[in-house]
């Protein structure tokens, strides 16, 4: 049922004339510091329906995505990222989520690029 509603909404939206891109490039900053963070961030992003491709660059903290705009939007992805314990500019992870990440990934204490050490 939900899918049907979603589909109809999609059709309506596109009919209204908003260009909804199937392969929209999106990039924003996500906090983290190491390879382990990279895997966790990319996995969290890819688990969001509509995210086709995700790659997080350790030194620049940029998460580059290709998303299907009809199925998702950046806020949905950011919600998933903070749930996994990683801060974004607009949304911050809860203390609970942040506590769950591996001790070596504690970026709030030290946000340096740690990729050489793992």
């Amino acid at each position, binding site marked *: 049922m939900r899918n049907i509603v979603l589909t109809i909404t999609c059709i309506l939206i596109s009919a209204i004339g908003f260009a909804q891109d199937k*392969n929209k*490039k999106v*990039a924003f900053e996500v906090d983290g510091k190491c390879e382990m963070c990279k*895997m966790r961030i*990319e*996995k969290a992003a*890819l688990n969001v329906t509509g*995210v*086709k*491709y*995700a*790659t997080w*660059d350790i*030194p*620049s903290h*940029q998460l*580059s995505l*290709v998303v299907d705009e009809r199925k998702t939007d950046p806020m949905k992805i950011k919600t998933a990222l903070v749930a996994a314990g990683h801060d974004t*500019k607009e949304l911050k992870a809860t203390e609970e989520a942040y506590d769950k990440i591996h001790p070596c990934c504690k970026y709030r204490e030290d946000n*340096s690029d740690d990729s*050489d*050490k793992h």
Partner: protein
Amino acid sequence: MKQIILLLFCLPMMVGAQKKIQGMVMEANTENKHIGLGGANVYWLNSQTGTITKNDGTFSIPYLEEYNKLIISFVGFRTDTLIIDEPKMVHHWLQPSNQLDEVVVRKERDAVQKTFFATQNVITVNSAELLKAACCNLSESFETNPAIDVNFNDALTGTKQIQMLGLTSPYLLITQENIPMVRGASQTYGLTFTPGTWVESIQITKGGGSVVNGYESISGQINTELQKPMTDNPVFVNGYGNLNGRLELNTHLNTKLSDKWSTGLFIHGNRRDIEVDNNDDGFLDTPLANQINIMNRWQYQNPEKGWVTFFNLRFLNDEKQVGETNFNPDTDRFTTNAWGSEIDTQRFDGSVKLGYVFPELPFQSFGFQASYSSHQQDSYYGFNVYDIDHESIYSNFLFNSIIGNTKNKFKTGLTFAYDGYDELVNNQDFERVDRSVGAFFEYSYTSLEKVSLTAGLRLDSHNRLGTFFTPRFHIRYTPWEKASIRGSFGIGRRAANIFAENQRLFASARTIQLNGNGGDIYGFDAEKAMNFGISFLQGFTWLERPGNFSVDFYRTDFDNQIVVDWENPGEVSFSNLEGKSFANSLQVELNHEILPNLEVRTAYKFYDVKTDFQTGLLQKPLQARHRYFANVGYNTTETENGGQWRFDYTLHALGEQRLPNTSANPVGFQLGDFAEGYSLMNAQITKVFSKKFEVYVGGENLTNFRQNNPVLGAEDPFGTNFDTTIIYAPIFGRMLYAGFRFKS
């Protein structure tokens, strides 16, 4: 709150200036105050477009769609690269470069890498490993690696054949940059046609490979990546000489023509004109040889547009003369004055590779590869004439994309192959043409951590093998940290080139029997086998240094095989498999950096390879059931200008080997049932003077172990007991060599 205000300020600007990047470069400070940095450089990577910030730190730069990396630099600050995909406001804080005492932690890449995450059991051998044994060509590149066994092929040519999982190289798919290479007419000598210095890296895949590269691989795949003109040294010279009289020179010349085009010229020559007969049997221990090998590569790379292209042209001329030391081809050819043999090969290769990555969709790409080769071998072994011409065309089109997201990927494509053979065996002409078209689809899933799997299926239609499916399946599971369990299953089939693969049998008095059943390939059916395997890899840290332990087991079961039976010393017979034929292989390996800079690798291998011959189910002849391997490598710490000493030592110990039955021979020409076990040691020392120059000296078979009578009936090579095929150990003894490498 601050961000929202900032955002409000930015909004009108973004609307007004769509095709511009405006922003401010500031000095980083603990209070996050806006301290503008005037005079900082702001420019697009790889472009002429740049600007300098004004006194208050603000700047404006045109937005160029073809660039997405904006570089901000200022003396005394760390240079930053921003990824920018759309016109927007940029506020950037530069970190003073003296803020952190920069500690560069460089991680040396291991010379042999076992992957924990790939679905397939792949071992990558890079060029650092290849330098451990100054190998002359690809067939000698595996001496320091336990995954591949190097065997001596025959008493005449001394060509080293390789084995994996207990099966000889025809059951391996050997590719060069993923284009099938050593096959058909080049099966026996093909590995000696790739000079060692041309090799950038080798990937060894155990077990059934990917469906992408065809249906032929049965026990595994060896892929060789050659040096790329864009990344290889502009000038490279390697000279090598050994005490058996072999001289070798390799020259690479690479030029960058523009930022997109590069070309390289690779020239190899080797020569041996000293006659060596250490065992005084009247036969050369190693052939007189002469090889010229020239390759020209072109590389095109355009990362913005997503195109990558390679063109390759190669020409090879290889001449070998073997036999009795007093054999002179001009006067003694096809006479009984002296026994001799000449093998002359001319080969031309051309190939093209084309790759395109959709710039907007980094997960989607297509690739096309095509190659042409013409291989002509003219040879005779005593009175046996063997000529083969092989013309081959291969092309493969491949499309990669995803289903949903990058956790679910697929590859699909089409293959077209043509092989034209013209083969003359004594007076008999074997002419044939192979044509095939195939389509494949391969799905791979990765959960990024725990599980990944690859499942592939291809359908081929071949004029002699018929129409058939080839399934391949691989799975990997990570039960805990630094561990990996893999399983694989695959079916492979091939049309055996029985003469090309068994050429050494011509150098004997054996008569050749073809006991075909009217099949399409020399009267035989296609070979077909199933391979499955499991492997376990565990990485560990002991004494604060890394190590790994692995164990794997593979089994290959033949549905049909062309059985080469030489259990009767008077003949060699070929027939379709009747009964069983299988190969079990178990390998246990332990590697560790036991002391700083001292790396130790050890392996034990057990092979149980049996085939139903005419005389019953027998162990494969000339193959040791037990093998031990050890390699110790030590490097001194690199000095500032790159100077270093490197030491390397390898031990191969082989258990007893079953010999083909010789009981029908007269007493003096019988060999017993088994050859005793023995061990071989190789060592090499390299002195690196600087990044530009190094010299090496080394030795193979340091204990000087030799097989006593490699040529049966050497006194009477035209008699009925002449046989050069029963070789289980080196023929020439200790071999010392030296060489240098120059790079600039």
